[in-house]
């Protein structure tokens, strides 16, 4: 075991974990942050997506030890954000299992491409799989924010 500091959701936490532990495992089992969901554990579904220095990362494809000295944000670190509201307004989820992953990916999309075109949106959204709702509602939620973004970029944490 190693003992290391991780900065998650603006908090520095000293925790013990094995170097072979994935970030997903450490977030959920050591830090109690269960927002990032285990799905395929194979990099395919995107349910485990978090932001690392503002970039979307599948936390099942990353070791926790790689997260040292980086800024990690999980769905628990987004509070009352425009993306969360847009998901509710546009009925962009049903069971909700995939939702934290989608939201963290879109959070990164909005930071990097506040006026993303259709192909960029499609490119980002193809990283996540939803088994129960339609992607159209999710796309609508993203697009509604692009409009808001033109006037108001507030509400998006700056982790870069």
């Amino acid at each position: 075991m190693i003992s290391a500091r991780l900065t998650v959701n603006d908090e520095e936490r000293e925790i013990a974990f094995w170097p072979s532990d994935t970030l997903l495992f450490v977030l959920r089992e050591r830090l109690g942050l269960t927002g990032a969901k285990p799905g395929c554990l194979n990099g395919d579904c995107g349910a485990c997506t978090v932001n690392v220095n503002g970039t979307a990362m599948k936390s099942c494809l990353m070791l926790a030890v790689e997260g040292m000295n980086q800024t990690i944000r999980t769905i628990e670190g987004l509070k009352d954000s425009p993306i969360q509201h847009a998901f509710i307004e546009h009925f962009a989820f049903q069971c909700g299992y995939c939702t934290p992953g989608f939201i963290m990916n879109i959070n990164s999309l909005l930071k990097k491409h506040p006026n993303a075109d259709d192909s960029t949106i499609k490119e980002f959204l193809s990283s996540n799989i939803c088994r129960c709702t339609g992607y159209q509602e999710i796309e609508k939620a993203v697009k509604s924010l692009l409009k808001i973004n033109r006037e108001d970029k507030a509400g998006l944490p700056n982790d870069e």
Partner: protein
Amino acid sequence: MLPYDFDYYLPKTVEEGVRLFQQLEREGKIPVYYSGGTEIITLGRLNLVETNAVIDIKAIGECKEFTIKDQQLIVGSALSLTAVEEKNVFPLLSKAASGVADHTARNKITVGGNICGQIFYREAVLPFLLTDSHVVIAGKNGLRQTPIHQLFKRNLKLQKGEFLVQLHTDRRFLRMPYVCVKRRQQWDTGYPLITVAVLKKEDETRIAISGLCPFPFRAFEMEKSIQQVGPLGDRIQEALRHVPQPVLDDVEGSSGYRVFVLEQMLQDLLRELEGNHP
């Protein structure tokens, strides 16, 4: 969580990385170089990677370089595929990289990891094969630079303890006409049925393919047939006689279907690059 544990090392220099590998081996450990780590984690979870010491090369400056120096584009092996894509200095590389996996996974998968990985598609190597690039390899005798064609024979033939540091590409190739198309069995992300990249260097047509055989390759023999004079259809038929063996035959597609798809792709791509030949 992986079913086994390993020690983690983060060397800052090429020399430190190589030295660590040798030292760990002397101590009876089984070290592996770790770049994006996505294959080590996913295959490791299935017990298909044997290691108890990973050497992460992402903190080594040379492995993160992306510059043009002495007329050569230098691409560090530990750069993520999206980092290379976004720079878009080498459009053929950006195109080939952007076809691998999905956007979020490409934030983690690296150029060197894709080229050195066990998973045999290794699509990021295609642009380097088409442009006769050089590879820079670190080993116990320091750095050596070699033409990629000498070392990449189905996979990158590295000696024990060596790792890929950089790829160097003559900048004259960067703006040459190209097409790169990935056909999947279904959807827009995931492994290819076949990926074909074609580069036009003056009158020469260069072809590299992934997903047809259980290894990516530069199709030197097929290129010779395509270079001949005659109707495109005949030249493609002749080229198909030089497809290396074995052709993949799996759930993604039978070998016959793969060759059929390749034929159609060559028709489309060559017509696009050569103009509207008969």
